[in-house]
């Protein structure tokens, strides 16, 4: 489908500023989601390097952070 420049500009100008803001917020929550996943994986690796102390607690916290991030990302998409 070939779009002319006028059509593209027309499409972009039709986007509300609040749609752009929503996209930005969703993107921010997505980045945070990725970060919490990295933290979750890293806690697993860290507890492999040194295990026996607070292992369960730290894994629980990292898992909880990740779950919260997933929920909030979904909330941002459907609620904002």
């Amino acid at each position, binding site marked *: 489908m070939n779009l002319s420049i006028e059509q593209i500009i027309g499409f972009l100008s039709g986007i509300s500023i609040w749609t752009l803001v929503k996209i930005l917020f969703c993107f921010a929550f997505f980045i945070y989601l990725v970060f919490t996943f990295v933290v979750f994986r890293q806690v697993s690796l860290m507890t492999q390097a040194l*295990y026996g102390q607070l292992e369960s607690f*730290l894994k629980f916290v990292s898992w909880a952070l990740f779950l919260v991030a997933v929920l909030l990302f979904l909330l941002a998409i459907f609620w904002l």
Partner: protein
Amino acid sequence: MPDIFISKKEQKNEPEITGLDKTINPLSAFAPGPAGVRFENQEEEEKIVLLLRMHWLTNVPWVILAIILLLAPLVLRFFPLISFLPPRYQLASLILWYLLLAAFVFERFLTWFFNVYIITDERIVDIDFYNLLYKEVSDAKIDKIQDITYKMGGAIRAIFNFGDVFIQTAGTELNFEFRAVPRPDRVVKILQELRTQEEIEALEGRIR
């Protein structure tokens, strides 16, 4: 009659570390004989004599920062920076702020908690997590230690009794730096005792 054979159990000479009670506090920065702790590549018969972390006082700057960031939205209420946003987006901004704060606090805690210096009856191990994605593990045998120095300067370090321990090992081996560890004088003494133990074992031909 002289012994012809001595079993390994009898030969095993546990290093005697005087004046240290075993700790059960998982957040301790100076943990002699920590219960239930093992590290990667630890040998089966190898025992952790001392587990060290940076003194808890080194966490104060980021804790204070975290408290400031925690209270910032209450203060910024008087300076409406995001009042132009609809209420839902303002709430989303606040949630995002506290999520980032939680991540910051957790990451700093993990960095402090897992950056450890371990002294076993056979070697010293330095586990460093520079950030969440970069890990460095160094170790050296106790009998390769040539020189041990500790430094404790400044009023804060003198009051709270923590400092740096520098360990020089033989030849091209890595040198170790135990930064801001509690009771550095005790750490040096323990290393010297272990080094003596290793020398005795070497002389008696009991090398593991």
